[in-house]
């Protein structure tokens, strides 16, 4: 095991870099963080549509959420990888394809988490804002969202864990993230799958376990800080 780490450790961390494209754990992290960062504003919009007063956006968001939740992520990746280039007429880099699929998929789940955060606030908060004369936009952006998002930070961090695991599906379309790199290592060293995939498992475990510990810690901090909070169960 040690000699595999000695030989392939750098590859596990950064892929072919600096001689080729960045890959490995670094790419997994970049894909995950970028995906979450792009998902976040989309999820906020979905949550606002879901909880807001307008019927059409509500119906569209609800249709989107229910559709996405009814299909596997892998199918979205196939769509983005095989079908989308035909529709738009030019090819897209596989890494972007993967990010796009994760964003669409996670927007539905993260949107529901943020919507739960909005609905979990005491009704008095929006009533007090209304009673002051604040309209929908200042009420939403100054009163509701800051609290709702703060309260669901643990849920958001938890989705990052999910995204990290989901990004391993990129190996199917040859995105050279962590799993793909280890697959390649395995084809070089055909006799050591136990060690190679053991290292792969340990890497994911350390990363995701640390994040879930961070989630627990955040949950306690947030619970201590305020009343009227909401505890959102992990989904996806």
């Amino acid at each position, binding site marked *: 095991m040690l000699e595999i780490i000695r030989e392939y450790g750098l590859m596990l961390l950064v892929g072919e870099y600096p001689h080729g494209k960045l890959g490995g754990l670094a790419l997994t992290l970049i894909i995950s963080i970028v995906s979450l960062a792009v998902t976040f504003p989309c999820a906020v919009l979905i949550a606002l549509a879901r909880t807001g007063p307008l019927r059409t956006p509500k119906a569209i968001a609800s249709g989107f959420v229910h559709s996405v939740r009814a299909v596997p992520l892998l199918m979205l990746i196939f769509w983005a990888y095989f079908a989308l280039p035909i529709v738009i007429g030019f090819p897209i880099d596989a890494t972007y394809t993967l990010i796009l699929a994760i964003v669409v998929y996670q927007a539905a789940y993260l949107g529901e988490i943020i919507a739960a955060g909005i609905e979990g606030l*005491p009704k*008095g*908060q929006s*009533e*007090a*804002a*209304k*009673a*002051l*004369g*604040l*309209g929908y936009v*200042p009420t939403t952006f*100054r*009163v509701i969202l*800051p*609290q709702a998002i*703060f309260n669901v930070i643990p849920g958001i961090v938890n989705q990052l864990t999910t995204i990290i695991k989901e990004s391993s599906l990129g190996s199917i379309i040859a995105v050279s993230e962590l799993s793909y790199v280890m697959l390649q290592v395995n084809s070089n060293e055909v006799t050591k799958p136990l060690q190679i995939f053991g290292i792969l498992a340990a890497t994911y475990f350390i990363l995701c376990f640390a994040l879930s510990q961070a989630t627990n810690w955040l949950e306690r901090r947030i619970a201590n*800080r*305020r*009343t*009227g909070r909401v505890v959102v169960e992990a989904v996806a």
Partner: protein
Amino acid sequence: MIEFQGVSKWYGTLKVLKDISATVDKGTTIVLCGPSGSGKSTLVRTVNRLEPIQEGTITVAGADIYAKSVNVNTLRMGIGFVFQQFNLFPHLTVIDNVMLPLRRLHHQSRKEALPTALLMLERVGLADKAHALPADISGGQSQRVAIARSLILNPEVLILDEPTSALDPEMVSEVLKLLRQLSGEGMTMMCVTHEMGFAREVADRIWFLKNGELTFDAKPLVFFSPEAHPDVRGFLSAIQKNH
């Protein structure tokens, strides 16, 4: 200042306000009381359109609050509203709570809004708590901040729905003292409360509601006298037993 004319409201098939007609004169303080579920909250919440009505008209400062020319947010800016549960914004400091209307409705910068907000906090005796978070001050202090926030745009009317019901007994008096002071300064107020000492001393008129009806509307002297409506007398003796 506020006039209810034949106001009725239903929740589904349940009629919770029944043909209410009454007037709140400018500069007077009205205390509303009555058994739980009698419609006190619903009635005061109709004034700033937090609750819509199905029949009748309500005018504030001469204008029908449902007139096409009335913008609901402008209406609400002119009516301070204080809730039983304070409803301070927990993510904002005390001063930011008080400044929020100035900043978002009068579009003032932080620097412009600060002196006005500090002055208002001084009025409610909480200038030293300006930078505390709502979680770090007492219930009585929270309610005084909520009152400061509701007054920051200089509304013509202040409405309070059981402002002391969520408070520990030792904090009730600091809030009532502030309300007494505001009433003395000529604020037009509608206050739902079961603090009968306060009602006797501060109210110009006391309204008694029962089952959605305004069954008695009288000066305190009459309200607390043996000539009061039998329902009122029953209510008063029930309250006394609880205290």
